[in-house]
């Protein structure tokens, strides 16, 4: 943990074909280099048939550069790159399950919801689920406050999802360039 503090949180974005076992191929590359995966999120991307992974890990620049190249090298990976927080707009989503009676007794629920920009997702007589999206510190702060005041029955936080601030959509550019190269090669 100590040397983790000197390290930077990198967000690795990976576009891949949607084939069985790819997650395995990606995570073993982190494992070989002894990198802990902090968060992980996988879903279909905007381009049909292509999946997008968003993985965060604490490391340094020299290491992340090598790791990303080794990921990129796998045959079914279309493109992989890394960013730091400054380059990204990013969020995580957290759900908090609370006892409804305690929540009502607490009285300050509206204030908390406003301060944290959270919302009530579902509510029954016995339990209530709050939802908050935000950065890690924000979802964590709400967790801390609720834990201290009324206790949290269940808590879950998603992996990070992120979008780059840069104007270019790297993947579509790359796919276009590859198609162009293919056509060029075919014509010779």
């Amino acid at each position, binding site marked *: 943990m100590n040397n983790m503090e000197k390290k930077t949180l990198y967000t690795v974005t990976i576009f891949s074909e949607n084939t069985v076992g790819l997650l395995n191929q990606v995570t073993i590359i982190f494992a070989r280099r002894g990198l802990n995966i902090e968060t992980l999120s996988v879903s279909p991307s905007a381009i049909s048939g292509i999946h997008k992974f968003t993985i965060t890990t604490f490391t340094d620049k020299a290491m992340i550069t*090598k790791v990303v*190249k080794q990921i990129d090298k796998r045959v*079914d990976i279309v493109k992989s790159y890394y960013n730091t927080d400054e380059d990204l707009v990013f969020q995580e989503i957290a759900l908090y399950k609370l006892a409804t009676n305690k929540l009502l007794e607490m009285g300050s629920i509206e204030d908390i919801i406003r301060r944290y920009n959270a919302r009530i997702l579902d509510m029954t007589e016995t339990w209530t689920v709050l939802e908050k999206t935000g950065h890690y510190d924000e979802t964590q702060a709400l967790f801390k406050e609720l834990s201290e005041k009324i206790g949290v029955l269940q808590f879950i936080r998603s992996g990070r999802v992120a979008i780059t601030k840069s104007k270019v959509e790297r993947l579509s550019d790359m796919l276009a360039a590859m198609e162009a190269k293919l056509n060029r090669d075919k014509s010779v």
Partner: protein
Amino acid sequence: MNSISGSEALLESLIHEGVDTIFGYPGGQAIPIYDALYDYKDRLNHILVRHEQGATHAAQGYARVSGKVGVTLVTSGPGVANTITGIADAMMDSTPIVVIAGQVPDNLLGTDAFQEVDVIGVTQPISKWAYQVRSADEIAWAVARAFYIASTGRPGPVVLDVTKTAQSGKVAYQPHKITYIRSYIPKPDWEPERIAQAAALINQAEKPFAIVGQGVILGNAESELLAFLRKADIPAATTMLGLSALSSDEPLNTGMLGMHGNIAPNLKTNECDVLIAIGMRFDDRVTGDLTQYAKQAKIIHFDIDLAEINKNVTVDVPVIGDAKETLVEVGKLLNPNQHTAWRESFKPHWERERQVVIQKELHSKEGPLRMGEVVHKVSQAVGNKAIVVTDVGQNQMMGVRYFSYGQTRSVVTSGGLGTEGFGLPAAMGAKIGAPDRTVCLFVGDGGLQMTIQELGTIMQSKIDVKIILLNNNYLGMVRQWQELFWHERYSHTELQNPDFLKIAEAYHIPGRSVSTRDELDAAIREMTSMKGAYFLEANVENKGMVYPMVPAGTAVTNIILGDE
């Protein structure tokens, strides 16, 4: 169109890829494929090995000398588990092989069925691509993709895990060819600015030095390399796997790099002003301590694999792309040059190595036989068109150091993985891949016993390999480390060996066991005059040492030479 079985489709697909040789071993989950093979005897030469590890190393030997993809066919479970060492070895040494393994029927996958192993899970980290084929219709596509991936870009092993369901299913077979995968860029485009930067650096250099790896051989760029070196008069050296990319008598070839390489190129690495790495990956056995490696030099790195750039050594100019093209492009911009004084400065180091190491190793008149002289004499007897295959250990270092290379693809040895047991099966594959060339194997008494059962394959398939056992009754290379760095505490490195000649005889392989120089000469004459396999056991100095040596993790200039 007639539909055929998945197994037949598999064989048709292999033939479509130009395959004529398969190294394999059958079993329950591969019986349908073997049954189909029965009718393909005229088109597919199946070599029945004695252990699946041997099948993979044979495929590697075949691929390394022929430039074609080597093919291995095995059954599920223990069969494919036995191929792991070969797959890992091929991954490390960028050898194009395709390993086809039977797998349990689809409905049993994941149930711990009899002889089920999670092949994809096990092989993914050590292969270029691993894929499970679950239905007969996928076979033509999967084979086409496997060959395309194995053979293009930086080559490597591909694993196809073919379920019995796929083998037995029916398919309307149509030949398939793959030449493009959108997520895979085998040959990245070269960048004109980098080409210009590389040429400018070389043009300014007073002491340029090229270090050449197997990438040049894999990329068939040997003649481009030579033209490049000659134009600017650049001395060069090779890694162990790069040996034979330049012939031994090429004046610009200054020898082999690395732990047991030659003195001159190792020292010159830390004296040159521009270091030009071509198709090599700065392995730790080549660089020694990275913090003391070529710090004075500007470094240019030619490679086809982007992940190799700045992996071990931070370089000034990366030249990505296919060396066959990039060497030409940079070459165009080079000024013709002469570096006579610089080249001459390698010579005293060679003189020193000759005096201190080589003379004793090759020309001792007394005392027991030495590994080096055996290799040297065999090399002289078979001529420099022969292929040398080695196992791992002292025999390997002596084999590659003292053999002469007259043409490319003449060295088959396990570099990155350093696999003891590689030699004998790799030699079989090499002979089958290059039937017109003499194949000499140098193997140790330890390593031979790791895959000795392949003598059976050599007997049954009548493979003409010249097996030279360098018997020192020790796991010699480990013993050498124990002598030098572990206070001569020979922990478990002395071997009690069988009568090897009797073993060879049991397999009907003729041979001799020799201990004197006269016997050696006579046995070599007999070996070269006979057609077919031959087993020459040379009983050599028990405690011989391989020098020069750069101890692991130290600077390339820290070269020990033994008693001077």
